[in-house]
């Protein structure tokens, strides 16, 4: 299996491009859902010690919402939509067409369902774009929503799915929902399983 610390610069560039294509389609889906403009940052490749996965996208003690989908097929792994508190609240309000959503307390079934479904649509768009671009069959599982501390969610996004390597890998695309003065931030993570990183690199002829 590839040691993620030994990826070359060409490979890293290729993987960033893969993430960019996937996130671009997810952003289009999110824009259509919310009728807002979505801005995407250049995807970042994050390679950290397993212990540091807890703080992968910010402080580990912040309460976040995360929608996780397992990726199955020619390549396996997870994609995770990470929404900080403000984004989770505002996105839910936009989707439900009302204000006054509270989070994490009193975030009810309807709110959870709206956020989960939005995550599912985004991640679905993400994976189908990747599938087309890479020429691989990529299927998504049903989505799972967690509202908890970032450390618990991110660490479990690796460990609960069998990851045990010293260093872990993810493709992280930061997006912003244009919402007046205070754009809403979120992250779309693509976490290929160790063996699947090679499958993706071979698909872009950098394996």
């Amino acid at each position, binding site marked *: 299996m590839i040691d993620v610390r030994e990826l070359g610069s060409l490979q890293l560039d290729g993987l960033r491009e893969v993430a960019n294509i996937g996130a671009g389609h997810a952003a289009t889906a999110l824009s259509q859902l919310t009728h807002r403009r979505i801005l995407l940052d250049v995807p970042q490749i994050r390679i950290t010690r397993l212990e540091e996965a807890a703080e992968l996208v910010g402080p580990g003690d912040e309460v976040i919402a995360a929608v996780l989908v397992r990726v199955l097929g020619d390549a396996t792994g997870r994609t995770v939509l990470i929404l900080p508190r403000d984004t989770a609240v505002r996105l839910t309000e936009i989707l439900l067409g009302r204000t006054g959503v509270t989070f994490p307390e009193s975030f009810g079934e309807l709110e959870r369902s709206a956020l989960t479904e939005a995550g599912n649509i985004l991640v679905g768009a993400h994976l189908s774009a990747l599938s087309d671009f890479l020429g691989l069959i990529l299927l998504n599982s049903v989505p799972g929503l967690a509202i908890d*501390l970032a450390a618990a969610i991110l660490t479990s996004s690796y460990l609960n799915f069998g990851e045990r390597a010293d260093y872990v890998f993810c493709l992280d695309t930061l997006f912003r929902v244009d919402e007046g003065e205070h754009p809403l931030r979120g992250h779309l993570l693509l976490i290929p399983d160790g063996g699947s990183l090679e499958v993706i690199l071979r698909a872009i002829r950098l394996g």
Partner: protein
Amino acid sequence: MSAGRVVVKVGDLKIAGAGATLVTVGVGSCVAIALYDREARLGGLAHVLLPDPSNGRENAPPGRFASTAVAGLLRLMEEEGARRARMFARLAGGASMFESLLSDGGRTLGMRNVSAARAALERVSVQVTGEDVGGSHGRSIYFHLDDGRLVVSSVLFPDVVL
């Protein structure tokens, strides 16, 4: 050893004495192992990720695994004058985040972590006097070394005192 709030990061272990509070946040499928010697008013806390080192990984930090963390905490505490015969342990964590997606049928990593911690404590004859484990929510641990009180807090659940 320091007083005040002592933060134990993921995969780490630390000990402290009276006046200090050992804290670790965001324990999901990980497990927090707390040891306390009431007489010495010394305590130790580990935030472990995995049950046991797999083959050839003996150079990994001891706080990563339940089996090695227990030995590590014991050694540090005994060096500071704690006695094994007086110690007791509490465990918190071992949740299954995204439980609906873990349809493998086998035991979850969270519960394997808890079992490994129990087994490691049994091997050194330290009794587990309290547990808040399982479920599908994360936990943060506040371990007060003045009196040994251990408070488990969660985002959507009331505090549990062990």
